């Protein structure tokens, strides 16, 4: 990946990349802790079904728009039917690595397009 983008890295930058990778590997904390404390969705991020349970109806606009986009990996999950928390943790790590890599490469390309000074 590094050679593809043709960017030279210094020691600190390499170190940060390693730290980012390590962070990806512990991301399942982000689903295990909420599961342990049995907490619900983030405020304002409920599904249409949950909104119906909360206020007694599904707002019309919410019903219309809530399914407008079918994300390829919804909720950082690869197989949403798989309920096992261990598998979910694995999918979460995979999603994290995919997402962070895509984000990194996209930002790198955008930056390279924008910045041409200071070589």
């Amino acid at each position, binding site marked *: 990946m590094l050679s593809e983008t043709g*960017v030279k890295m210094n020691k600190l*930058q390499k170190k940060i990349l390693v730290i*980012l990778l390590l*962070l*990806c590997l512990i*991301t399942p*904390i*982000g*689903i295990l*802790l*909420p599961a342990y*404390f049995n*907490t*619900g*969705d*983030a*405020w*304002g*991020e409920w599904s*249409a079904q949950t*909104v119906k349970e*909360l*206020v007694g*109806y599904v*707002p*019309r*606009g*919410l*019903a219309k*728009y*809530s*399914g*407008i*986009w*079918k*994300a*390829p*990996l*919804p*909720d*950082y999950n690869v197989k949403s039917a798989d309920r096992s928390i261990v598998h979910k943790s694995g999918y979460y790590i995979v*999603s*994290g690595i*995919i*997402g962070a*890599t*895509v*984000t*990194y*490469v*996209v*930002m*790198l390309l955008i*930056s390279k397009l*924008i*910045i*041409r*000074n*200071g*070589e």
Partner: protein
Amino acid sequence: MHIPDGYLSPQTYIPLFGVFVSVAAVAVKKVKDEVSARNIPYLGMAAAFSFIIMMFNLPVPGGTTGHAVGSAVIAIIFGPWAAMLAVSVALIIQALVFGDGGITAIGANCFNMAIFMPFTAYYIFKLLSKNTTGKSRISFAAFISGYLSLVMAAILTAVEFGIQPLIASTPDGKALYCPYDLSIAIPAMAIEHMLLFGIVEGIITAIIVNYFLKTEPTLIYAFRNRGKNE
């Protein structure tokens, strides 16, 4: 803090999308002038960092979940304009690939977490770290910058949620979009971010600013031009 599809009326998300596109255009120009080519890898890492940190959902026991954003530390070290672009890239990929945040709400989510938050964080940090080189003062400034900017961004998000029943309701009083008004949305969002997520954002900001202060102090954007215009 990622607003999903269907919670904001078009009267809200279209103007915010316009603001986002305009600010992004300015940011491109600013980053072109301000950031040197050798720092390009850092910008990629900053975006990836923001992406990853937002995956760490933390529970408020008995309540909901939330997370830090990373905008504050990116704004302090690489500048608010670079932070704007980096966090926007993370948010857009979260929306498109992972369905985290709606596609209609991309403008709103970027406005809250990638525009409002990094600029708020940056100016709070500049204000609090003025005329000081003391390590503990700078750590304190970084913590407060992360804490307040996240809490304020959460309140801004709550305002966007909370004005929906006023903007768009059916004649019999049913909301068309977010069903909760300001009196519910603001306390809910403010309290959880004040009690937990803001503290996490503050700690992350302080630790990383401290680390860069030790290893690569000349890199820190907020300390550039020191003594010239302060």
